[in-house]
């Protein structure tokens, strides 16, 4: 697709969509959202860029191998289970602490892992299909 309007718009929309997806990811703890929908949102946003330019250019713009996102996501999700294990409790037991007034725990880390895996595998599929 070759549309100057879409291309220009995409350039400004993509950062906003990514920011929004991260907002959805962290919002998920108390309100609708979370790693799954956040990751999907980010991937959909990026689809816009693929249509505005093409898969090859989109890949370049991404600057990071989507495989890496998948692997990192799995590592982060699995790593979030280790603190519980170290404390002698079952794998993936949640550990909670305070940062200022906010309660933060390993499930947040886990959710970030989910976000990365969902984004990574969606991008892998999209970019490779688009590249064909």
């Amino acid at each position: 697709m070759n549309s100057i309007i879409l291309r220009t718009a995409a350039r400004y929309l993509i950062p906003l969509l990514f920011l929004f997806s991260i907002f959805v990811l962290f919002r998920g703890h108390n309100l609708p959202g979370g790693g799954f929908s956040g990751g999907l949102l980010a991937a959909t946003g990026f689809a816009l860029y693929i249509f505005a330019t093409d898969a090859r250019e989109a890949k370049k713009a991404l600057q990071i191998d989507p495989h890496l996102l998948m692997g990192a996501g799995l590592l982060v999700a699995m790593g979030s289970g280790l603190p519980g294990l170290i404390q002698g409790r079952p794998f993936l037991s949640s550990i909670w602490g305070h940062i200022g007034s906010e309660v933060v725990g390993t499930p947040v880390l886990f959710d970030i892992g989910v976000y990365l895996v969902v984004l990574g595998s969606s991008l892998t599929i999209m970019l490779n299909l688009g590249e064909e």
Partner: protein
Amino acid sequence: MAGGSSHGSSWRGWAISLIPLGFLIWFLALLPGALRGEIWSLSVPWIPQLGVFFSLRADGLALLFAILISGIGMLIFGYGGHYLAGHRYFVRCYVYLVAFMISMLGLVLAGDLITMFVFWELTSITSYLLIGLDHEREAARKAALQALLVTGGGGLALMVGFLMLGRVGGSFDLVTLAPLGDVVLADPLYLPILLLILAGAFTKSAQFPFHFWLPNAMEAPTPISAYLHSATMVKAGVYLLARLTSVLSGSVEWTVLLTSFGAVTMLLGAVMAFLVSDLKKILAYSTISALGTMVLLLGPGTPAAVNAAIVFLLAHALYKAALFMIAGIIDHQTGTRDVTILSGLRRAMPVTAAVAAVAAISLAGFGPVLSFIAKEMLLETVLAAGNASILVPVAIISAAILTATACILAIRPFYGLRCVTPIAPTEASPGFLAGPVVLASIGLLFGIVPQFAGTILIAPAVAAIMPQSEALHLALWHGLNVPLLLSVVSVTLGVVLFVTWERFSTFRTRLPQAARFGPAALWDNTVEATVSFAGWQSRILQNGYLRIYLLMILMATLLFVGFSFLDGLPLVSIADLNDVRLHEVVVAAVILVATLFVIRTDSRLGAVAGLGVVGYSVAFMYTVFSAPDLAMTQFAIETLTVVLFVLVLYHLPRFSALSPARTRLRDALVAIAVGAMMTMLVLGVTATNAGGRATSFYAERSVIEAHGRNVVNVILVDFRGLDTLGEITVLAIAGLGVYGLLKLRVERSGS
């Protein structure tokens, strides 16, 4: 090549044999304690919730086996260095051998049924690897797989038997189980337990009709045959029966099954040993015969018979390993192991000939050797048995044939006219001969001073099997009695058979034809039929068409879930339908119309858009029924799906036609049935409100325990985090799968 001793690598075997030597010293050090009743043991919780412990216990029986395994292992490791010098898989072979030895030691030292089972399986696996060591040869691969399938199949039965025994006895611990014989015998599960455990023991110890894998396992290099398939692993079944004697013996079933299978195996093994001409096969069949004898001797469950079994076991381990090593030496130094060819090697290989003679005297069981005492005890046992009229002739005939076989092994290769062999024969080097010399000498030593072996090895083992029995006095000379007379008869008969050996050559040539009706052929056909059935059903179920996969998945779901509706259909009252609101009806109608459009349209883009409409409408339904999380994810997924489809559409060929009418009818029927089933399922679930307790459970704990108010997300990332971890792993694998499929296609079209 000839000589084999000049190779630089031949010493390596003896270097590695320091490992079994270390074990041997440790076990010998444990022996005095075991004689006094101080038994070394170790127990570590493994799966304590299920009562499973990793426990080891070195009582008399375990130590007898452990000493045999490490002692014979040491000699065989050293011997193998010479035999396998220059072998391309030398290192691999020793890695497997050490792994096998440790598995086997674990098996006999195990103090817990589950621990024992794990080591039992490990011996099967290492045996598979060792038989198939020369994996380039098809015969070796086939024999390895056959041995694995037979012993592995028996292992499965054994596992079920162990689990049932653990349930009946209330523990997997062997010390706890040992005095519970009366409880187990009285239990209705006794017969299934016995049959399952016997299936495991009989397959491992090559009892008829499962014996056929053992001669085939001779495809392995000779040190492996000598170690695994003669001295140690094949005795695991005998060990298990001895170990469980106090728990399972004492019933008519035990005695009848062990005695009859043992007797048949004993006779069959002896006859076959007489009829084959390959040195290793002769030894393999005589091993089968010996294993049958041991099982037979464990049948009556009397102290005298158990004593006889243990004496026989010790004697057999010593002379059979020696004979195997001699067969390997002859093979290595001459290039053949066919007894119809070999003759006159005495001058070229005098030491080998002498050692062969000593070991063969043990096989014949006549002379100042331990196995003579064992044979006397065997004859005493069968004379005292209930059905002596059958067992005595069987025992005498088997013994006679084995005497003839012993003569064949000791005389034919070494005396008579000097034969022409592929390699000019020379005497083996001292390091090569050390193993058989030591083993044959120990056999002779134990025969001359039997009370020595009796006190330090046999009595503690028998005491471990039957704590209440007193030690028997072992002696070469029992006076002029019936067993001695029978011995003389069998030896005379054996000599006659040896002299007339040539006349049986017609049987020998016809053996392959007869084998077509044996259990081995039956087994091979069964395995072949299983494989072709698997191929047939894979071709139907996994034919590469995605639509057929979908159809199969849907029909299977229909079958298994629909099955549960046989109890009755969920009822829907009309009152429930009153609060259906207008916009819900409208959305449902949109879904239906869009679906009809998808299946009727001849535009791919149109179909994709139609599917999108269906998805968005379903997502809208979620928002109506207050599931914003689900709706949000669904909206994102639908968008992404359409995007993906559009990306794929570029690459698809032009749309040609819809499926034929009959296919569409079939698909419609399945689709309607699945739809109806899902509707019923949802109605059923809401009618019973099964989720009520789970809902309130999560709702109550979400904020308190997980500090989150979004219950759906808290379940995903916290309460059921492990499930989610599994799901995202699958997602990542799916992504990689798509990547692989696409890249593979590019490469193929590129080349």
